[in-house]
């Protein structure tokens, strides 16, 4: 029995599809033609007589992740056969790693600063995709598509150190950040899946496995459901047995698959079709020298070089594309201004539109043009916000748009005075109220001027002009 100060114990086995061009053990492309079973050969179909051939690129990618997760990297890459019968398996065994995984004893930091231990990182091949034409539980038959069969996967196993569904979600999110910094994962189309071991104090921590959870949003949903399910079963007086469940994301529930097998029942043996690959120091050094900056490198750089706040740096660095955008923008405009606009305004507009940065069409030029105008006070913050909203819908040239729509800030005091005079004239009551000491009345007049200028004036400036004019009266 596990003793823990936490009420919930979660460990994850995360499977990540890495974005090599070809499969792990043959030269079939990992993406392209989507017609079922079109991207296959004798090896990924498991035809008798075929033999696997290791994709060296995949090994390099795997080593990169191990380095990023501070893993100890073993000197020899050894593959084993994991045997079980299932219709998605081309050979009824999966080429995986067993005794000696590629990486061991690593760690990954959550947003909260909590470090989650990584038990192991190993390489394996993806099985085929099973298509249940009428949903997983109802379908009388399944279709098998081997296009995915043999795609390279990395399995990342955590220590059982996560203590909530939210932490599990954040772990996945942090992992995706690392993967995208390393550029070994296709954030748009790559598959990231998790199997979770979840146990709760109420059951004296009887391990329940939930399989097949896709993405970081799903993991929170699935685990919340599973924790509730376990609690309610205990409440009903049931005793939990060690069991495997599957997550049905459409229905939003988990259902029992089978009594849990222990790992050893897979009858692992070495795959002697693949020779042991030595991970030489030369290879390791080469990969180390090619390692890109990771989120934590970016954070310290942003703070020391660009002098932005650590809090801002953390938010920007959490997303590789945002960080890269920031670096480009900070070259052209004040980094502090850039940081403020990227982490507040850009993120706000993206969230509002329910979009991710990689999904929109604008690039750094748009942002730089916009912020240069803000920096030179040629447009007001308000106008800039509106422009950003529009830019995200559909990009356009900022400078010519501002000119064409006449959005430049009204800073010509003659023009501005004219608007102010008009407003004073039109609102005698408010002027009287202000004179009586009602500050709110002044805001009202300023608002009128802002309306007249369609937001192109800075409220502070308008404020001053109006006070002057009224005092002169």
């Amino acid at each position, binding site marked *: 029995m596990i003793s823990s100060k936490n009420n919930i114990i979660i460990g994850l086995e995360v499977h990540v599809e890495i974005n090599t061009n070809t499969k792990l053990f043959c030269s079939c492309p990992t993406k392209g033609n989507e017609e079922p079973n079109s991207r296959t050969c004798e090896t990924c*179909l498991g035809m*008798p007589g075929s033999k696997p051939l290791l994709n060296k690129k995949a090994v390099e990618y795997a080593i990169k992740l191990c380095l990023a997760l501070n893993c100890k990297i073993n000197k020899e890459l050894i593959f084993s*056969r994991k045997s079980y*019968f299932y219709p998605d398996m081309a050979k009824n065994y999966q080429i995986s790693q067993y005794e000696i995984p590629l990486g061991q004893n690593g760690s990954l930091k959550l947003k909260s600063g909590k470090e989650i231990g990584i038990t192991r990182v190993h390489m394996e091949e993806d099985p085929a995709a099973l298509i249940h034409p009428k949903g997983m539980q109802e379908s009388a038959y399944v279709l098998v598509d081997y296009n995915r069969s043999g795609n390279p996967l990395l399995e990342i196993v955590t220590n059982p150190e996560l203590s909530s569904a939210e932490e599990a979600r954040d772990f996945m999110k942090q992992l995706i950040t690392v993967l995208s910094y390393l550029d070994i994962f296709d954030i748009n189309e790559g598959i990231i899946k998790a199997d979770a071991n979840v146990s709760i104090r109420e059951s004296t921590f009887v391990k329940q496995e939930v399989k097949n959870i896709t993405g970081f949003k799903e993991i929170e949903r699935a685990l919340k459901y599973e924790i509730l399910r376990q609690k309610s079963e205990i409440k009903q007086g049931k005793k939990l047995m060690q069991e495997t469940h599957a997550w049905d994301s459409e229905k939003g529930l988990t259902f029992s698959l089978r009594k849990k097998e222990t790992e*050893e029942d897979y009858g*692992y043996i*070495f*795959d002697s079709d693949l020779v042991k690959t030595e991970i030489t120091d030369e290879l390791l050094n080469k990969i180390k020298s090619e390692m890109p900056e990771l989120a934590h490198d970016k954070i310290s750089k942003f703070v020391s070089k660009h002098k932005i706040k650590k809090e801002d740096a953390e938010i920007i660095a959490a997303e590789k594309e945002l960080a890269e955008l920031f670096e480009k923008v900070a070259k052209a405009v004040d980094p502090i201004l850039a940081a403020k606009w990227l982490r507040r305004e850009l993120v706000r507009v993206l969230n509002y539109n329910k979009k991710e940065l990689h999904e929109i069409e604008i690039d750094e030029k748009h942002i730089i043009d916009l912020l240069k105008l803000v920096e030179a006070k040629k447009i007001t913050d308000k106008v800039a916000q509106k422009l950003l909203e529009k830019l995200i819908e559909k990009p356009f040239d900022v400078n010519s748009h501002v000119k064409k729509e006449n959005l430049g800030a009204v800073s010509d005091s003659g023009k501005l005075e004219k608007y102010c005079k008009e407003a004073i004239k039109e609102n005698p009551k408010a002027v009287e109220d202000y004179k009586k000491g009602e500050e709110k009345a002044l805001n009202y007049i300023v608002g009128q001027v802002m309306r007249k200028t369609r937001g192109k004036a800075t409220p502070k400036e308008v404020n001053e002009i109006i006070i002057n004019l009224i005092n002169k009266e």
Partner: protein
Amino acid sequence: MDTYEFVNKIKNNEIDIVEHTHKVIEECKKINKEYNYLNVISEELALEQAKNIKKSIKNKENIKNKKLLGVAVSVKDSICVKNVESAAGSRILKGYKPLFDATVIKKAKEQGAIIIGKTSQDEFGFGGFSVNVGLSFKIPKNPFDKQRSCGGSSGGAAGITQKASFPHIALGESTGGSIAEPSSFCGVFGLCPTYGRVSRYGLIDYANSLDKIGPMGKSLQEVALLQETISGFDQNESTTINKSADNYTDFTNKKIKNVKIGIIKEAFENIDNKVNKKTLEGIKKLEEAGIKTEEVSLKMPIKYGLATYYMLATSEASTNLAKYCGMRYGISEKLEGNFNEYFTKVRSSNFGAEAKRRIILGTFARMSGYRDAYYIKATKVRTKIVEEYKKLFKKYDALISPTVPILPPKFSEIEKLTPLQQYMIDTITVSPNVAGLPHLNVPVGFENNLPVGMLLTADHLEEGKLIQLGSLFEKN
């Protein structure tokens, strides 16, 4: 007419290759009616190849360097030949026509070899007598006595090699003795090369860390010729050795000087007197050629070789055979029940008894709780076996022993043997197989009108030395 002569005649258009191939096919059919050496006669492919050769001769294309031009090559059923049923002697693979040629087939075809068919074998190579053929397959019979076994598992290959009157070489395969042992029973030369010397790409696996493809021929010249053709690095097969192969044919008439051979003491214990006698005659012949011999001891390999072999081979085989479930190729049954029930139905009704036995043995040996004691232990013992051999090869050029402890037995005798007694037939041949060492069966004469073979084993990659020594026994 020897193979060189034949190839030259084909090149000079003195023999019509198409006519010749027709005759070859007819003879195969005739032999097969009596002896069951071929599971498939690839008549269509053979004639197409013959016609293509004829065309290239007519068009004066460059055929000068084609070492096997027009030579009939038979292929063990477990080696994939494109578009020709390749079932490894198992009903579960009935109807499987590979979409690709094994690397050895590709290489043989490039040298002008004509593929005449798939030779019979124990199902997936599981046996030493070719009696464990798959359900609905026929058992090959000894060319010298039809009541007796040709040995196995490359039994059909050895039989057709002995029986064919036309120039022919066989591609056999050995996991634990399946080239040397049937070669001995059928009185032909059979070379099992170093593990990794020949690509296994396209070989239907029995045990991946042990399987080796090798040639069998009536003359050692032919064996050398085919070995030369198929050897070498294959970028599609990770376990092939990245070192160029020797010109093995050069070794057939190389002078023997300063050679020292070790006679394996333990291999002569508990063997048939007649086998003993003939082997000693063979050794005498070597000594007469000026070769020094000494008795050596090979304790570990003889004592533990067989157990080690069966642990490793069945463990690997049980995973290799998992893919046969009636889903993508080979035989299928009526689709009923869930996948588990369906797979079980296909496997229960289409694997033979020995295949099932080895699946069960192998699955057991790698199961949790037994894995360390059996599978992992066996991998460690294997290292020890290799070490013991390596020590001897520092002192000796080759080791010598009988190939099989007995004369080819009658089928009625085999029936009485327990599985373990059947496994014992491999006692001598398993060890060089476990150690991945090249070994050669050399026919040394007849007793009771049955052939006897002697086994020469050399250090890794010393196939040339074996051919050199073996050529002393070439009939001339």
